[in-house]
């Protein structure tokens, strides 16, 4: 197994040149007549992960997960080599390193995770280059629609030949959020915070976003408009929410912005009964950064140690997987751990079943035929619950809702408070309104 050292920053020009030179030598040495895919060699897997930059939290467990997964894959007889590249949380960089993995490292299968900012550029490159790719940890709408030539025209959307994705979608968010808010006594009037990024544009879209779905469930949505990430002021949004008498706030924002927004709400006297935001309070570190102001803020839960699933690769339960990570790194568990592990589970399963793991068409077809029970639940590209246009490439995993509660030791824990859409996942409590005593 070779794991390439992660590229730490832009300034390793010398290293880059050296690497390029080495690659050139290898390419030269291999001779002109050698076919690009040599028989009997290791199966090469590429993995693009945002190890540095604002999305680094998503990739925190990557080293731990990938090392163990690759060791296990080799143990069960798959002769694999993993090439990891750092996207530096930059979509352009992600596309560049994906190209490098395909052209220089000649990978047979690409894996990618961690928000549309990372999955989309890598998926697009792979689709264009004809390299099979499995993607996860981004809602499927920004992933599928965001990669279409014309996102505004559903008639022009085409399925992909090589790109496959497993995660939940906005319809799951609508369902889970509605169920959570349904537990409270509110005026069903919701204010939305949707920034100007891939997620914000998809969630805030008046036709394909949250609005119509929430309306169907009886919730009205006030959307003041897209704003820039890392904004220093939310006065406009707070005034708009006050004017619309919103008792619930939702949105998909980045961690630093929830702190600014929530502080200003308190300073400017805006007191909603529920604040349910995606992305921003995914990680315990983000909620701890809020101090006791984070109490009872709510969020979607894609995966937790309480999920009753087991890994098909290592046989660990969700609880063991999270516990093992915490023990090895003395860091709290985070939701991406499950999905990163799940990604490698699917990869191992696909490579096991593929007739020729180095044949892109063969591997892509094998991915599409996957029916696997993983640590994040069942992954099966059978089109269940999907609209026809995305049925081939997307499969959905379960989603529940949770609230952050302070434990006795001043640490936060995520309590599952809604499981209506995935009853096999146990709840640990019920939704509580925010308290301003």
């Amino acid at each position: 197994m070779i794991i390439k050292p992660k590229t730490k920053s832009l300034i390793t020009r010398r290293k880059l040149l050296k690497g390029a030179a080495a690659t050139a030598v290898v390419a030269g040495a291999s001779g002109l007549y050698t076919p690009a895919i040599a028989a009997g060699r290791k199966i090469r897997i590429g993995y693009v992960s945002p190890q540095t930059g604002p999305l680094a939290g998503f990739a925190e467990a990557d080293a731990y997960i990938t090392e163990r997964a690759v060791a296990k894959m080799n143990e069960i007889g798959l002769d694999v080599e993993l090439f990891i590249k750092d996207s530096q949380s930059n979509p352009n960089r992600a596309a560049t390193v994906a190209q490098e993995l395909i052209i220089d490292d000649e990978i047979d299968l690409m894996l990618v995770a961690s928000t549309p900012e990372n999955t989309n550029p890598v998926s697009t490159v792979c689709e264009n280059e004809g390299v099979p790719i499995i993607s996860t940890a981004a809602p499927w709408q920004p992933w599928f629609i965001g990669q279409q030539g014309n996102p505004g025209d559903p008639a022009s959307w085409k399925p992909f030949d090589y790109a496959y994705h497993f995660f939940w979608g906005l319809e799951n968010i609508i369902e889970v959020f509605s169920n959570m808010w349904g537990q409270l006594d509110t005026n069903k009037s919701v204010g939305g915070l949707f920034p100007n990024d891939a997620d914000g544009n998809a969630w805030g879209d008046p036709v394909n976003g949250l609005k119509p779905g929430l309306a169907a469930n009886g919730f009205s949505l006030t959307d003041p408009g897209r704003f820039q990430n890392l904004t220093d002021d939310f006065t406009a949004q707070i005034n708009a929410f006050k004017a619309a008498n919103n008792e619930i706030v939702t949105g998909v924002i980045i961690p630093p912005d929830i702190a600014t927004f929530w502080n200003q709400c308190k300073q400017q006297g805006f007191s909603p009964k529920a604040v349910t935001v995606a992305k921003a309070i995914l990680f315990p570190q983000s909620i701890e950064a809020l101090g006791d102001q984070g109490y009872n803020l709510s969020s979607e839960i894609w995966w937790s140690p309480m999920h009753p699933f087991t890994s098909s690769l290592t046989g660990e339960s969700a609880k063991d997987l999270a516990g093992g990570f915490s023990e090895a790194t003395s860091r709290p568990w985070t939701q991406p751990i499950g999905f990163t592990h799940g990604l490698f589970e699917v990869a191992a399963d696909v490579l096991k079943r593929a007739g020729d793991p180095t044949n892109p068409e063969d591997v892509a077809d094998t991915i599409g035929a996957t029916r696997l029970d993983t640590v994040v639940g069942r992954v099966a590209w059978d089109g269940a619950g999907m609209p026809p246009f995305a049925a081939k490439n997307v499969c959905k995993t379960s989603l529940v809702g949770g609230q952050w509660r302070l434990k006795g030791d001043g640490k936060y824990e995520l309590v599952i408070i809604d499981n209506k859409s995935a009853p096999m996942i146990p709840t640990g409590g019920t939704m509580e309104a925010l308290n301003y005593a």
Partner: protein
Amino acid sequence: MIWVDTVIQGVLLGGLYTLFATGLSLVFGIMRLVNLAHGDFIIFGAYVILVLVTWMGLDPFLAVLIAMPFMFALGYVLQIVMLNKVIGDEILPPLLVTFGLSIVVQNVLLEGFTADTQRIHAQELQIASVDLGVATVGVLPLLTFGSAILVIVILQQIFYRTSLGRAFRATSDDPVTASLMGIKTDNIFAIATGIAMVVVTISALYLGMRASFDPAIGPARLIYAFEAVIIGGLGSFWGTLVGGVIIGVAQVLGAAVNPEWQILSGHVAFIIVLLVRPRGLFPKAGL
């Protein structure tokens, strides 16, 4: 009523931008050095304060007093051992060096503190507010604005009432002649960077209490600081305050119309000022 509230919030936001910009203005005014790592130094300062607050259990305002001399020393040494070597007639080398510094600082922080979002906790102060009748404003933004004014008053006093200030001004006007008169320009530059780092520490305190931060968010703040400096006119501290307030009010007013216009309206205000007064509102004579 909502417009009065909006303008007041914008002015207070301008206080934060002024703090970001003052350090930049100082360094640029004296040695024509565009410090691209300024935003990252602010985040670095925030981590210094964070360490003092979480590890030593200090009050943030006490922590900032301890962080100030440390940051001054850091700025001084940085200028002596690195930046002085690249300052010269050419504008590009210092630009490249500070660009490199920006990347170095971000990655050092990432190695040391991971990508976790952090926050400087100030308990009750964080959410305290006062009702001004026309608007409810946070105590923290008020303090930020007050500190910005205080910083500018103090810098004005240093610049125009002390011999150090005279040396600053002389070096700024003509470093060669100033050194003929016995001023050690290297030392003056280093002191200026040190003072800029003290201002950086103050901005770090207020940024760290207002929003949460992580190693990567420094550069996002740099552009507003630049615009505030340019709007105000190079070398003018009060101008920087006016510049910061203009950007703040423009952003908040733009956002009130539509949040999509928040950032854009700040930039538009900047361009309008440049069109009308290409040298800024209060340019220092001779610059």
